[in-house]
C-alpha cells in the first residue's frame, strides 16, 4: 500500500515533500516519519529530539486532520493516506 508524506517549510527544505512511499500494513505514523526523516540527519534532528521523540512543536496531520503527537505511535497509516508534518504556523 502507498501513502504520501508532505513536509512543509523548514522540514520540506531538509526532507523534500510529496514523498510517495510503499508501506506494509500495520505501519504506525511515528515509525513511518522516523524512517523517512532518517534520510537526512538535519531533517531528522529538526523533527525528533535525541531520544527519538517528536519535538513538542511538531504538528502532524493525517488527511487534513490533526493527530496528537502522543497518539502517533499507535495510529496506523492506511493505503492512500496523506500525512503532513510541519513546524508551527506563521501566516498572516
Amino acid at each position, binding site marked *: 500500500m502507498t501513502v504520501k508524506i*508532505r513536509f*512543509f*517549510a*523548514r522540514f*520540506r527544505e531538509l526532507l523534500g515533500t510529496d514523498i510517495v512511499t510503499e508501506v506494509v500494513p500495520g505501519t504506525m505514523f511515528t515509525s513511518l516519519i522516523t524512517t523517512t526523516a532518517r534520510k537526512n540527519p538535519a531533517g531528522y534532528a529538526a523533527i525528533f529530539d535525541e531520544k527519538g521523540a517528536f519535538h*513538542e*512543536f511538531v*504538528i502532524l*496531520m493525517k488527511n*487534513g*486532520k*490533526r493527530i*496528537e503527537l502522543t497518539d502517533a505511535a499507535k495510529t496506523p497509516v492506511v493505503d492512500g493516506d496523506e500525512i*503532513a508534518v*510541519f*513546524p*508551527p*504556523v*506563521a*501566516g*498572516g
Partner: protein
Amino acid sequence: MIAIQTADVDIGALIAAAKKQGTGAVVVFDGVVRDDDITEMELEAYEEVAVQELEKIAGEATRQFGLLHVDIIHRIGRLTVGENILIIVVSAGHRPEAYSGSRYIIEEIKRGVPIWKKELTKDGGRWVPGEHGHGSGKSR
C-alpha cells in the same frame, strides 16, 4: 471570497462588493511585507487545509459578530517589501462588530492556519517563527 493565491487583489473592488444590505461599517486589514532588512519574502501554504481553515474562521466570525460579508485573501509565493500578504475585508451593521470580527479573523489565522513565511536576506533566509508555539487549528 476566501482564497490562497499568488495574485494580488483590488482592495477597492472588494470593499465595494462587501457593502451588503445593512452595512454601516467596513473594516479592512492589510498585512504588508515589512522592511526588516529583507530582500523578499517567500510564503508557503498547505493549501487545501489552509483554505478549509480560513473558511471555518470566516464562518465562525460571521456567527460570532454578525458580519454581513467576509473576504480573506492570503497570498503565497515570493513577495517584495510593501506588497500585500493578507487582506481581510469585513462588513457589519455597526463598527464594534466590524472591528472585532476583523481582529478575530487575523488572530485566528496567526494561531492556526498552515502557512509559513521565510524572510530572504542578503545572507540567505530565515523562517519566521510562529506567534503561537503550537499552531494548527484542528486541535482547538
